[in-house]
């Protein structure tokens, strides 16, 4: 019979809340899982290796839920050895317990006879074996679960009754805590745990008794709550398909919105609504933003991609039989579209450039002046950049076009449309510019100039857009560094990391020929010659360059898939021209593990060590190798080979054929190997020694212009 006693059971925890912000539930699901795993493990109620597999967490607007399976109903008994004084101190010469032993025995509440001796690496010690009886899990969990709830962290928590109660994201209104069918009794934030949950706010019952995960889910479903997000999402997706496919339509894909509505509803249902097709005269971007932003509707497209005069809304009801909800949503959307049309018309009563003077009243940063000031600096920089492209043979570079686009770029910040829909900054300016007859290249440049917003965001679609985007970001970076706004840790209020990443991404992906240091200097010059006329110290300029190069390393690692040492090796030989540096990194990666190259790289490391050691010994100084002093045959061979190879490398390097150049360099290997086999560098004869060091130094110097190979092999962050 005893074998049939149940030892494990299922734990169900539900924190019932007022509506939790949709964007925060997923993070809380993950955190709750980790916290529960931590507490169950610490309480010895689960087997450690499987703990993560046996816990599920999920959430809906009014509840966070955890289910843990295979939870022990009673903690295992454990024995624990407590180490006391060393044997030599615990017993006197006659083997009798000393005062030290007695006091240890007292502390452990065990008679001396029950103590034992254990051997440790440090010798024999007196020890006590304590056995700790396991507690019933219900009692342990009654202490651990409130801790789990308390430890959940939220971006912005609140009080809801008095300030001496715990904080949470929204008020907690009920708690279900059941182990193996019975309630785990505790109280948290004045709420007593129990076994009763609430259904849908309007359609479900309150106080539904549950015993386990299985009846929890089914009873909630009967009460119009789909507690699992994947169930809700599937329902939404299939209803979207049903509503669109038979009319040959599709939604404007929006994964983020789909996720949001999944977490905004406990019983999501998709309904479709219509709007007056006259509104389709407004640009798609604006219509989509209006539908998505405030209303959280999916926009609907025809197969060809143009918007259709319909929308899909996700409601928290099983159906809308009388069409009341649909009529309500259509009415709200009508008003919002009417507003947008009003802004579209009234903003354009004056041309876009008429907003330029207004930018002088908008502060960019207290010390950095207004947006009007910024625009002047960005214009200067955009012209300078376009000239660079032009001088390097990029014929589509447009100096005056870049200047005009930079002048218009920020105008939409003071329009009604952007005040209402800030997420449309850039786009609105671009659309107005196009509607007012600016050339397409300029309109798109205005439209795109905030791009790229992240590592995977596309670049501005044309060169003028890339130019203005670069100029804008460069100015932000240099101006902010100039007044000491430098990103630290998680604090980066002006998103300078993103700006720097954008600069790197544009240069590399558009393959723009420009010197990083010259670019930073140009931005510093613009900052000095335009208001607020701030002088950038050489130090700050160098700091800005370093910041940008650090982002470039990050980009090459994350996006390019190169390793730390490949990038370090190349950057050690200079990375002022980023595209060139990227080409060199690719060449190094392609060849580094080839037969001759890898050992050669090791030899270069050896050379560097020798040179570093000799640095203090007054053996340097000699720059040119004196062929007359070359004594050993292998020494002569290295000198001759290196001179021959040097020319080939130089020619290939000029043509930017870096892989070929590196292949040439790897042909040095036999000569280098022979040299190290046959020649001792640190000989007595000072002249010979100095000459050999000069030979090695010239080798290292001449063949490190593509990459410093001695960096290869130390695969770690620098």
């Amino acid at each position, binding site marked *: 019979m005893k074998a049939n006693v149940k030892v494990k059971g299922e734990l169900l925890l539900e924190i019932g809340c007022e*509506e939790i912000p949709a*964007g925060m539930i997923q993070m809380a699901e993950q955190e709750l899982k980790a916290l529960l795993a931590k507490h169950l493990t610490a309480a010895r109620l689960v087997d450690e290796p499987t703990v993560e597999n046996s816990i599920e967490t999920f959430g809906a607007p009014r509840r966070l839920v955890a289910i843990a399976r295979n939870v022990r109903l009673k903690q295992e008994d454990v024995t624990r050895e407590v180490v006391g004084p060393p044997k030599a101190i615990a017993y006197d010469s006659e083997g009798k317990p000393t005062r030290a032993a007695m006091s240890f025995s007292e502390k452990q509440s065990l008679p001396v006879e029950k103590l034992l001796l254990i051997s440790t690496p440090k010798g024999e010690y007196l020890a006590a074996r304590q056995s700790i009886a396991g507690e019933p899990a219900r009692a342990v969990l009654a202490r651990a679960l409130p801790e789990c709830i308390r430890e959940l962290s939220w971006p912005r928590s*609140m009080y*809801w*009754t008095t300030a001496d109660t715990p904080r949470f994201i929204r008020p907690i209104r009920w708690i279900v805590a059941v182990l193996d069918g019975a309630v785990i009794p505790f109280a948290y934030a004045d709420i007593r745990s129990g076994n009763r949950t609430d259904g849908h706010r*309007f359609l479900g019952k309150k106080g539904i008794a549950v015993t386990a995960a299985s009846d929890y889910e089914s009873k909630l479903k009967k009460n119009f709550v789909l507690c699992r997000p994947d169930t809700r999402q599937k329902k939404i997706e299939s209803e979207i398909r049903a509503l669109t496919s038979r009319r040959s339509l599709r939604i404007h894909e929006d994964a983020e919105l789909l996720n949001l509505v999944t977490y905004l509803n406990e019983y999501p249902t998709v309904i479709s609504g219509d709007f007056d097709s006259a509104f389709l005269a407004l640009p798609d971007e604006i219509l989509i933003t209006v539908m998505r932003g405030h209303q959280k509707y999916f926009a609907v497209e025809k197969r060809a991609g143009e918007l259709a005069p319909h929308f899909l809304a996700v409601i*928290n009801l099983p159906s809308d039989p*009388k069409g*009341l909800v649909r009529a*309500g949503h259509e009415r709200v959307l009508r008003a919002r579209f009417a507003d947008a049309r009003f802004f579209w018309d009234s903003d354009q009563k004056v041309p876009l450039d008429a907003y330029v003077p207004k930018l002088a009243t908008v502060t960019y940063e207290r010390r950095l002046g207004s947006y009007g000031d910024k625009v002047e600096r960005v214009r200067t920089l955009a012209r300078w950049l376009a000239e660079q492209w032009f001088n390097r043979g990029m014929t589509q570079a447009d100096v005056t076009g870049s200047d005009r686009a930079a002048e218009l770029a920020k105008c939409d910040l003071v329009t009604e449309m952007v005040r209402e829909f800030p997420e449309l900054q850039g786009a609105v300016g671009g659309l107005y510019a196009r509607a007012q007859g600016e050339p397409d290249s300029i309109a798109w440049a205005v439209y795109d100039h905030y791009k790229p917003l992240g590592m995977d965001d596309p670049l501005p679609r044309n060169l003028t857009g890339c130019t203005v985007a670069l100029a804008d970001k460069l100015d932000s970076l240099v101006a902010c560094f100039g007044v000491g706004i430098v990103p630290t840790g998680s604090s980066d209020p002006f998103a300078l990391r993103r700006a720097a990443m954008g600069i790197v991404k544009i240069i590399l992906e558009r393959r723009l020929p420009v010197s990083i240091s010259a670019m930073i200097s140009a931005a510093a010059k613009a900052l000095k010659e335009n208001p607020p006329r701030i002088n950038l110290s050489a130090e700050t300029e160098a700091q800005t360059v370093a910041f940008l190069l650090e982002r470039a390393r990050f980009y090459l690692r994350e996006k390019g898939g190169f390793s730390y040492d490949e990038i370090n090796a190349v950057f050690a030989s200079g990375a002022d021209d980023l595209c060139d540096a990227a080409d060199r990194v690719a060449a190094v990666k392609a060849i580094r593990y080839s037969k001759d190259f890898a050992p050669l790289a090791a030899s270069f490391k050896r050379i560097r060590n020798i040179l570093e050691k000799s640095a203090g010994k007054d053996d340097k100084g000699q720059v040119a190798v004196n062929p007359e002093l070359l004594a050993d045959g292998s020494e002569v061979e290295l000198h001759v080979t290196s001179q021959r190879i040097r020319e080939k490398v130089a020619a290939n390097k000029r043509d930017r054929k870096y892989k070929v150049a590196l292949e040439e360099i790897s042909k040095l290997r036999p000569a280098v190997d022979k040299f190290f086999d046959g020649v001792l560098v640190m000989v007595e004869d000072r002249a010979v020694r100095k000459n050999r060091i000069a030979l090695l130094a010239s080798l290292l110097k001449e063949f490190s212009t593509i990459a410093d190979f001695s960096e290869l092999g130390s695969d770690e962050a620098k």
Partner: protein
Amino acid sequence: MARTEKNEKKKLNPPKVKGLTFQDLLLTLEEYWTKRDCVLQQPYDVEVGAGTMHPETFLRVLGPDPYRVVYAQPSRRPADGRYGENPNRLYKHTQLQVILKPSPANVQDLYLSSLAAVGINLKEHDVRFEEDNWEAPTLGAWGIGWQVLLDGLEITQFTYFQQCGGLDLNPVSVELTYGLDRIAAYLQGVDNVFDVRWSKSMTYRQVRLPEEQQFSAYSFDYADAASTRKQFDLNEAEASRLLSEFAKLKGDAIERFPILGAYDLCLKCSHLFNVLDARGAISVTERAGMIARIRKLAIQVAQDWLAQREMVQAAAGVRA
């Protein structure tokens, strides 16, 4: 003959209004909340931008004493004026404000029943609570809560007050702010707020249009920036003078010292600031500075109001 009679009848019986009239909506909600132990208060008689600025909210949420109140508050937002030509935007809209201090555990249910009371069938409409944390920088006040959406339309701001006048609140009050104009338009099924039936025989347009036209015109076109600024300075100086005098007070004079007067002056500053803003007379930098000046007054008022109350109670304790 018969036809004329019919016409006459039509005149006497105005068209049946779908949903509550604007005034019945107001009366129903006020009655609903007074039955739940709220004091029925009147709108404040100084221009305010929101029901929160009424002393019945701003000052009552401070300190430990429980309170429940309901009142309508016509709220002036000069920058939102559209000369009465926009179907949704108003210079002055009407809020219905409810304060429940401390917040009861069933506060959401209480609120939802009030919607049912004005004729909204909660099983047939999509009513939801979407995250929206409210903040009033000029009042040093913020809270956590939601906007309540009815079929996609924002109808109420629902806030658990965390701070007011820069002071942490304990206990926490719940503030419910209903947008009466839009709720009425929704219930009556009209797209334009001016078509709302105010009473059985009068429309919103008939009651309010001149106000919208003239005050929009005043704040956009006529207000003299220099003199408005001067009024702002005068009100601010007077409020500051009062508050600095309070700091020096002792004894019996404390109880009748006009902290409330200082608060009125602070409210006037807030309204004058809104007029200047609508007039386009404030640069962005100046804007932040003026908000900080109003906020400074509001915070001082809140602190002094509490201090005054404590001193008066302490003195009463001594006398007893």
